[in-house]
């Protein structure tokens, strides 16, 4: 068990660590700070954000302690308090980081040139793939964030509002001429979310893509009607297995 000689002393994160992937790819909004931050401090912060997400995925936000986070990051308690006010602050920062990246991916799928139903399907597929490939993020964003302090809740709610506004474009172009309630889009998203969270809690995060036909159906049926929503759902079955590459 000899580590590569060039390896720095910190415990290396799990290879498919979600936030880690985000951070390593430097997909984060750059240039938030004008002040040049010492590089080491920057990486300590990132390690803490990752450790926070991992610990929450493992034992839940409530049971996570600052000691867990510091140990997971290989960072001292004193450093933690230099960077964050408290546990809630650290969790909020962790969520903010991951969410910005995730929402960027979903929004990127949308294009005004595609038919609405195609966009819903593509966005749903991108979202499910994202969650499936980043179980730590999936758990943090959908299971822990709604009940882990105000800042995290606000971030969770704002992510949901973005998805909702994308979905509600369907209202522009209803197939059946009926006045559906204004909450129909929000309800449909909650329906999909509930199914997804159930699978995450059941330990089936890696197989979330299989839910695509269900998610397509529930999010389109209020706008397109049953017949067309079923057609879209069946079409999505073919896409329910992610194509390689």
């Amino acid at each position, binding site marked *: 068990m000899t580590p590569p000689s060039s390896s720095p002393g910190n415990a290396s994160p799990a290879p498919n660590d979600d936030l880690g992937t985000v951070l390593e790819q430097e997909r984060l909004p750059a240039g938030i700070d004008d002040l040049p931050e010492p590089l080491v401090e920057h990486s300590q912060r990132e390690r803490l954000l990752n450790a926070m997400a991992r610990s929450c995925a493992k*034992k*839940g*936000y*409530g*049971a996570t302690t600052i000691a867990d986070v510091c140990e997971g990051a290989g960072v001292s308690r004193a450093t933690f308090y230099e960077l964050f006010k408290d546990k809630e602050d650290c969790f909020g920062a962790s969520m903010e980081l991951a969410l910005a990246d995730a929402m960027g991916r979903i929004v990127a799928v949308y294009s005004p040139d595609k038919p609405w139903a195609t966009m819903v399907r593509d966005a749903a597929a991108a979202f499910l793939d994202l969650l499936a490939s980043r179980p730590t993020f999936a758990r943090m964003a959908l*299971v822990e964030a*709604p*009940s*882990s302090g105000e800042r995290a809740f606000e971030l969770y709610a704002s992510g949901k509002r973005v998805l909702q506004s994308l979905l509600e474009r369907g209202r522009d172009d209803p197939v*059946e001429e*009926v*006045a*559906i*309630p204004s*909450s*129909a889009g*929000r*309800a*449909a*998203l*909650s*329906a*999909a*979310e*509930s*199914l997804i*969270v*159930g699978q995450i*809690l059941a330990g089936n995060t890696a197989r979330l893509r299989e*839910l695509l*036909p*269900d998610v397509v*159906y*529930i999010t389109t*049926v*209020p*706008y397109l*009607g*049953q*017949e067309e929503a*079923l057609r879209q*759902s069946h079409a999505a079955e073919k896409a329910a297995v992610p194509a390689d590459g």
Partner: protein
Amino acid sequence: MAAAGGQKRERWRPPRGRHRLPPEVIARSQRERLLEAAVRVVAEKGYTATTVADLTREAGISRTTFYAMFDDKEGCFLAAYDGIVDVLVRRVTAAYEAEEGWPSRARAGLAALLEALAEEPEIARLAMVEVGAAGPTAQRRYRAALQRLTPFFDEGRDFAPGGRNLPANTSRMAIGAVAGLISDEVTEGRAEYLPSLLSEVLFATLVPYIGPAAATREVGVTK
């Protein structure tokens, strides 16, 4: 932030001379008191901030008695939670079964659920929101509670003309839509207005089974 000892809450206590009551009766009333206390304290302070000491103080029982009944705060919370869910499911079931025809049954069941939650906003908060903060076991318990409503939704499949062709998880998703609309309202601190949500919640229930046009018609029928 323990409530300072200023105003004392009225608490139910066993009648005087309770030493003459059989021990199992005393244990039972202590347990009930504790579960009621858990609902009040968690609704007020939130699950995370609640301590075992808060619970024993509110219930007027000793720490030893607490630990004779539960291993920890979580165990106590889960028992309180199960009690709440049982009551809610009983009320929904009774209202649902009193009606004929699936859309009317769904309307009656949902109305009963909304009214029950609106009557006791602190219970609504605990059942729909705080449960998320109480750890992985409680989160699974919440899912299980929602699944107890599945038979009511599955009847929609038999009712709907094309019900058999619907996606496998239709009932789970419809339940999720209802729970989402309710918890959004409770999170906003509007639990007492839940009954006014009936037509939206009913639409969300019906639409996956019968489509938007028929669902809108059903929602409009006899309020």
